[in-house]
């Protein structure tokens, strides 16, 4: 058969602007690390970044660095460096890839941003275990290695209702971080500054929500694969004006697409929900695989995890505690089922793909019967694919392709 032209994902014009603000962010971090007057904090991706920003810290997010290691396909060769030190190949491959990169003295930042050699040296490491225990272990390794303080929040887990008792707990833990951070930064926490930062985070998150919800339109103007790239500012620059400005620009472009009836995928036939982490080293291949099947993977739990409607400038610390406890990942399966069910309806989904990531149990929601329960309740078919976020040794491209093609065949069959 003559090869047919495969449908492609439509390019987002605002990408250039996003790359610019991300570059500015990384250069500023690099300068902060070299400056005798500025301080650098490392923070988990859903850690108390607003608190750190309001206190003047330049904030580095190791998860962002680890995702870059994955996307550049550097991770798989670096993970064994950590494995040989006793960090199992079964644990978080963000952790093992990032520590491996440190040990080998390499970083994707060096290639992307001339003049930057490595992530900035930290003055303090601040974690929140709302995602998993691994972030604490990850930061603790650096604390021992670099001899810097490591402080954090141990979040409760697997709850359905977010009660005052839980919020009080995290709120108190967050307040307890302040004296140490004041000592390291050499400045007192200015509550007005924190309020401004939380207000900007709220604005950023609200815009990010609107960006993602454009995909509820048919055809969807953006995909999950776009989301994984464009969520960068929502992760590393929330609380800043640059992030707010950027998402206004992106939203305007997507609204134009909606007005013009343009979808991200040419001839969208199937609307897919992605549950779990992306396979960072296979973003392009997966995007092309789905586009070629005229399937739009248009919404995900993962990208939606940086929507925090609870931020409230009037009550900044408590609202941060609430926002960071509202996360999908930290909730019970009962909550997760209800959440995904309403998303399926809102985005008019035909099928769900669960990525069972070998080294990320907390982001792999196919292990306790959730897909079967949801399929029974909603009638929407699902597929579980095995893989990993960063460790490509756990990924089988042929199995993924066969499974995805067979799943789309199944959706087509049922439609006839």
């Amino acid at each position, binding site marked *: 058969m003559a090869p047919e032209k495969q449908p492609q994902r439509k390019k987002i014009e605002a990408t250039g602007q996003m790359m610019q603000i991300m570059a500015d962010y990384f250069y500023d971090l690099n300068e902060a690390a070299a400056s005798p007057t500025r301080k650098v904090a490392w923070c988990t991706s859903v850690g108390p970044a607003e608190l750190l920003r309001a206190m003047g810290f330049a904030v580095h997010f190791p998860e962002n660095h680890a995702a870059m290691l994955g996307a550049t396909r550097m991770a798989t060769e670096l993970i064994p460096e950590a494995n040989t030190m006793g960090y199992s190949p079964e644990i978080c491959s963000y952790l093992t890839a990032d520590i491996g990169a440190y040990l080998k003295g390499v970083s994707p930042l060096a290639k992307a941003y001339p003049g930057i050699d490595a992530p900035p040296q930290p003055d303090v490491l601040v974690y929140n275990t709302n995602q998993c225990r691994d972030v604490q272990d990850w930061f603790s390794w650096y604390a021992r290695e670099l001899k810097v303080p490591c402080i954090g929040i141990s979040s409760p887990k697997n709850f359905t209702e977010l009660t005052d008792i839980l919020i009080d707990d995290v709120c108190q833990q967050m307040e307890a971080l302040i004296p140490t951070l004041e000592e390291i930064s050499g400045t007192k926490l200015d509550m007005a500054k924190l309020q401004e930062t939380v207000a900007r985070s709220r604005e950023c998150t609200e815009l990010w929500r609107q960006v993602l919800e454009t995909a509820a339109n048919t055809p969807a103007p953006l995909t999950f694969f776009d989301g994984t790239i464009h969520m960068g500012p929502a992760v590393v620059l929330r609380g800043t004006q640059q992030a707010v400005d950027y998402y206004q620009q992106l939203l305007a472009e997507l609204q134009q697409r909606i007005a013009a009836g343009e979808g991200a995928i040419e001839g969208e036939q199937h609307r897919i929900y992605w549950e779990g982490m992306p396979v960072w080293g296979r973003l392009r291949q997966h995007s092309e695989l789905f586009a070629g099947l005229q399937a739009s993977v248009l919404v995900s739990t993962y990208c939606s995890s940086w929507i925090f409607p609870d931020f409230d400038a009037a009550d900044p610390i408590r609202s941060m505690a609430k926002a960071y406890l509202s996360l999908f990942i930290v909730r019970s399966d009962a909550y997760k089922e209800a959440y995904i069910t309403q998303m399926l309806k809102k985005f008019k989904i035909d099928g769900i793909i669960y990525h069972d990531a070998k080294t990320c149990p907390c982001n792999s929601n196919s292990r306790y019967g959730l897909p079967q329960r949801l399929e029974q309740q909603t009638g929407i078919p699902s597929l579980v694919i095995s893989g990993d976020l960063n460790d490509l040794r756990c990924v089988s491209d042929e199995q993924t392709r*066969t499974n995805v093609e067979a799943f789309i065949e199944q959706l087509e069959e049922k439609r006839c």
Partner: protein
Amino acid sequence: MTQGFFVGLDLGASRTKVVVIDDQGRLLGHAVKKSGINFAATAAICLEASLSQAGVKREEIAAAVATGYGRNNVVFITEQSKTEIGCHARGCFHCFPTALTIIDIGGQDNKIIKLDAQGKRDSFKMNRKCAAGTGAFLEEMSARLDIPLTEMNDLARQATEMIKLGSYCTVFSATEVLENIRHGKPVAAIIKGIFYSMIQRVLEMDALTEKVVLSGGVVAHNPYLVEMAEELIGRQVLLPEFPQLTGALGAALYAREATSCEV
């Protein structure tokens, strides 16, 4: 009804299977060969053999569909390739047109496919990246025991006792096998345990509906596995006349349908 002959090619990781059917879906010719390292060449040899058996000339082929891991490696197909999951489903439903659970045990992977009464897929599952329960597991055990694959079925059937293997990991299972040999356990009992382990691993993948079909090369060459599966499931299972050919048959049926759509 479309006139002519239809070809289905199933280029599996272990074996290549080709069938030729007529417009009534009747099997006229077939061939099976080890896939080897040149999928295209193997497919061409199987095609010639199956056409010759069917008494059909190449120019009489109305349509051809490929499936399996090497589905994109052949040049003489005329229609869009289909996944082996779709083709096994289509082939088995052609043999047994009712709501089914299909258990396909292949050389490299296993599949459990559920069909509704119209033959449409409700769900499917493939094994994880692991050899447990696959033909590859059997091949590894055959090598460890230094017993040809072709002799394993009869040995398992003759066994008067069974040594169960506890692990689902092929490497751990091999260690268990060696340990049992060291302790002087009868080889036939070990092989029966290996068969039992294969069926157990497959049945663990998903719940079964009432009518169960077994397909794939492993059951085609090891009929004792079918008996063992029936014992474990607690009821008779359905077996196509040519269990190894259901994927290729499904591909040929897809070829027939594609041509009728165009007409």
